[in-house]
């Protein structure tokens, strides 16, 4: 038995991303914003993107949710920065799970939410591109 304080609910990587989230906040004058909710648990995740020359230059998140939801959004934004839109469209939640060193089975949906938020932000960007800006 280790000392009480040495036990954590999630692994060290998840705990690090939960306690010290990367890219937390909103991208100023974002090119695309995606906000999605999980019907299963009620968590909400928002990802905003800055896109330049077909690449994700900046990505930020805000999350209403549990530790693994916060860690998943932190990790997802870390992973997608610098990727092309085409690459980002193929982004899978499994990449988040792997990079976090695994999530408990009941928490896998948190990583799915991160994937959905990213894809919603890209869709938002593309919808804005398709629509001519009102003069």
């Amino acid at each position, binding site marked *: 038995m280790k000392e009480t304080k040495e036990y954590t609910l999630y692994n060290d990587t998840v705990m690090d991303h939960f306690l010290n989230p990367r890219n937390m906040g909103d991208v100023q004058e974002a090119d695309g914003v995606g906000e999605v909710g999980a019907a299963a648990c009620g968590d909400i995740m928002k990802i905003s993107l800055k896109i330049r020359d077909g690449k994700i230059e900046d990505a930020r998140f805000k999350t209403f949710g*549990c530790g693994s939801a916060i860690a998943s959004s932190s990790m997802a934004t870390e992973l997608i920065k610098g990727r092309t839109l085409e690459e980002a469209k193929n982004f899978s939640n499994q990449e988040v799970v792997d990079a976090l060193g695994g999530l408990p089975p009941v928490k896998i949906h948190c990583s799915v939410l991160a994937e959905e938020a990213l894809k919603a932000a890209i869709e938002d960007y593309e919808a804005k591109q398709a629509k001519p800006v009102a003069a």
Partner: protein
Amino acid sequence: MEKRAVYLDHQTTTPVLEEALQAMIPYFREAYGSPSSLHRYGLQVREGLKEAKEKLAALINAESWEDLIITSGGTESSNLAIKGFADANHRKGNHLVVSAIEHPSVMNSIEYLTKHGFEVTYVPVDSVGRINPEDVRAAITDKTILVCVHLVNHDIGTIQPVKEIGKITAEKGIVLYCDALAAAGWMPIDVRDLGVQLLSFSPHRFYGPKGIGVLYRNRKARVTSHIHGGVQEGGRRAGTENVPAIIGAGVAAEVAVKEMAQRVEHVAMLQKRLYDGLWKHITYIKLNGPEPGPLRICNTLNLSTEFIEGEGQLLLLDYQGIAVASGSSCVSKSLKVSHVLSAIHLDHALAQGNIIMSLGKDNTVEDVDYVIETFQKIVDKLRNMSPMWKEFEEGVIDSVVTPTGKGKSFTQHAADISGKPVH
């Protein structure tokens, strides 16, 4: 501020009292006989068991120690009370009346019976989780054999009008089972005054060891055994007794009786200080269950902090050395909000931000002040991270606790963006 270790989950379990532990030790290696044995080793243990049961009986003012059945825990006690009573009395009727916010061991025992020919009426509760005795009366039919109402709710701390319900069941000649899991050791209990025929509790909730539970059962309530084997516990619960745990539980009960007044006074003082401090410093926060006072158990606060989720609060508190519980869906293995919070019709947004803090006799004023200061920082950190907080500030969604009249409800917003209604 220096980090402290503050355990605020006493409604889940407590550490064993030093005097209880010391009393248990001889029963592992010196007095290790089985009370069923006829030799001196058995007789030696029998004496200790009887004394321990007398102390447990005194905690609830039972007529006799022989009215107690010792089980493996609170869960087995409620299973035995409900299934054992239903089995023994099914010829008299097949209808059960139960409050909507009972402990899972009660809810799931009842649900099991509904698959075996029993019918059940769930009695609703009001917004602070209190049962109206007249609703119990109205639910009783000529087929009713058992009414189940807990003394204190395990999640939100509401004290139920069990005595008033006991008058109704006595009038109708129906047996009343009371689960006193969240009450025993934290408020005086008198089975005769309450008018209950069955009552269960679990000593590890008041500084006794885990692994034993108690079911009080008086002569008016016949129960059929569900653990079959030898003739222990008067033939109602087979299996060699967990002697050291029963001895420890007896000591915990004896100390609880002796120190009840000062324990309740100390813990109630801390509860009030915690409540006042949190509500003074944190906005958009709601108490679930009654205000500290005569309708709430002295040791627990159940609160919902708006725009943030409960598991995140729990983890950040844990990181700062503070141990709490939560009824948020993210904390449950089934991803469902606590059925108690659903029964009081707590808004989805508030159910998600739920935290349960339960105090103990060894907590101090310094502990409480540390929790108040730490919790403020945690709420700020999580709100800063939450899209809901900014959307509230921008008037996109409204507060449930203190509505501004601007924006849609969180629940509506969550349903809009997830494409389906939540919960």
